């Protein structure tokens, strides 16, 4: 892996992905081996939108590598309220930190921000765009539970605005996968994303559906996302649509015993709590995987060590 910034999962080759996943597995097995690798290193967190898991797992990852964080805090308490541009904000914080993690509501914000800074920048979500570190932990979880080749995955819910979905779908085209996208018509994948997937994989591994039943029995992994109320003009419409994309124990009777159920969280009612205790549930494990993945990622981006970065592979 040889990148200065991580902006989109599209920039990652299969070799890049495997470098991060292998290294995360190594760290997961023995975190103490890297405990002080980045003593004195400071990670700058710039979250212009709320975040719990992403922000806390980056913070934990940096601290477990021996480093520390500086946090811009909420937008309300920052100079953004005085009208500062993002370009200025990142150039200022760059002076305080050795790497930056950015979440911002505008699409393309991370690409633009990366053009203004010299330290590594990780995109932690740019509007409906990309969220590549989430993708890496998703891939790690899939690999642990089902393997990444000869994989049949169903991705269900809000595919239009769900950036985790877009990032994951791109990354999966590096592997031998069949991807089924299940959503109401109004929340189908953006045409831009479909265009890219077809460019990547001739479209052979891509199918779109409006009902889970059509594909459920064939799935190795079901990746569920939340359908948000605010995407619908009225409450009735939302209730009607959302109800069709929720799963419970009865739904999963038609699924393979080995089906792995994932969710980027937070969930509201897409996955019934009764599934939590079954062997299908991998979503809490998935959230926990955020730490070793982000430790691996930060170490790779911050390290000059060619062996760690796997530069010889490219």
């Amino acid at each position: 892996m040889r990148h200065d910034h991580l902006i989109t999962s599209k920039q990652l080759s299969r070799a890049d992905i495997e470098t991060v996943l292998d290294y995360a597995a190594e760290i997961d097995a023995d975190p103490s081996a890297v405990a002080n690798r980045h003593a004195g290193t400071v990670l700058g967190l710039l979250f212009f939108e709320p975040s719990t898991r992403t922000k806390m797992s980056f913070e934990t990852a940096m601290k477990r590598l021996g480093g520390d964080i500086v946090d811009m805090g909420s937008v309300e308490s920052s100079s953004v309220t005085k009208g500062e541009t993002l370009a200025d904000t990142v150039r200022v914080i760059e002076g305080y930190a050795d790497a930056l993690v950015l979440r911002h509501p505008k699409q393309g914000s991370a690409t633009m921000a990366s053009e203004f800074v010299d330290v590594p920048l990780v995109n932690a979500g740019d509007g409906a765009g990309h969220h590549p570190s989430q993708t890496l932990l998703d891939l790690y979880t899939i690999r642990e539970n089902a393997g990444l080749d000869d994989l049949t995955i169903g991705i269900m819910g809000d595919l239009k605005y769900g950036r985790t979905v877009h990032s994951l779908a791109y990354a999966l085209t590096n592997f031998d996968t069949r991807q089924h996208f299940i959503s109401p018509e109004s929340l189908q994948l953006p045409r831009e994303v479909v265009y890219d997937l077809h460019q990547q994989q001739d479209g052979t591994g891509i199918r779109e559906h409006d009902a889970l039943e059509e594909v459920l029995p064939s799935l190795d992994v079901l990746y569920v996302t939340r359908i948000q109320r605010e995407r619908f003009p009225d409450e009735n419409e939302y209730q009607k649509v959302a109800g069709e994309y929720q799963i419970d124990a009865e739904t999963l009777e038609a699924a393979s015993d080995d089906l792995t159920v994932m969710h980027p969280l937070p969930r509201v009612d897409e996955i019934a709590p009764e599934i939590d205790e079954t062997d299908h549930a991998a979503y809490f494990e998935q959230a926990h995987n955020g730490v070793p993945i982000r430790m691996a990622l930060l170490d790779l981006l911050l390290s000059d060590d060619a062996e760690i970065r796997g530069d010889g592979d490219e």
Partner: protein
Amino acid sequence: MSNGHDHHDGNDDHELRVSKIRDGTVIDHVHGGQALNVLAILGIDGTNGEEVSVGMNVPSDRLARKDIVKVEGRELSQDEVDVLSLIAPDATINIVRDFDVVEKHRVERPDVVEGVLSCPNPGCITTGDEPVTSRFSVLEDGVRCSYCETIVRDEIASLIDT
């Protein structure tokens, strides 16, 4: 027509509409109705005193109706005119010196256009107050914002940043 390349579809009437130029650039075979977009995309609005002649919807053998733009005193470079391929793919560029056409070439599709179009996606970072120049990659059948990745295939002229 004065430049000796197009007399088959020129006539006296045409001559009256579009005057000859001594030195400068003639952009010919622009699709009818696109001349003002051509000027907009080139950033030519007359405020710098350029002498500009525009003929719109004049008869043409090749295009039925074409527009023609003549800019006196300015030789446009290939890079400058290539962006015209987005709205005037059949345009021909004639560089004129002392009333003679000394260079004649067609527009070629560039890989990227910068600072010419504005992104139609209100959620794109380039649409706010950031100090960033718009950038689009040119696809076979449209353009794509390099920041938010929005693809535009129709009515690219409506994106021209004026």
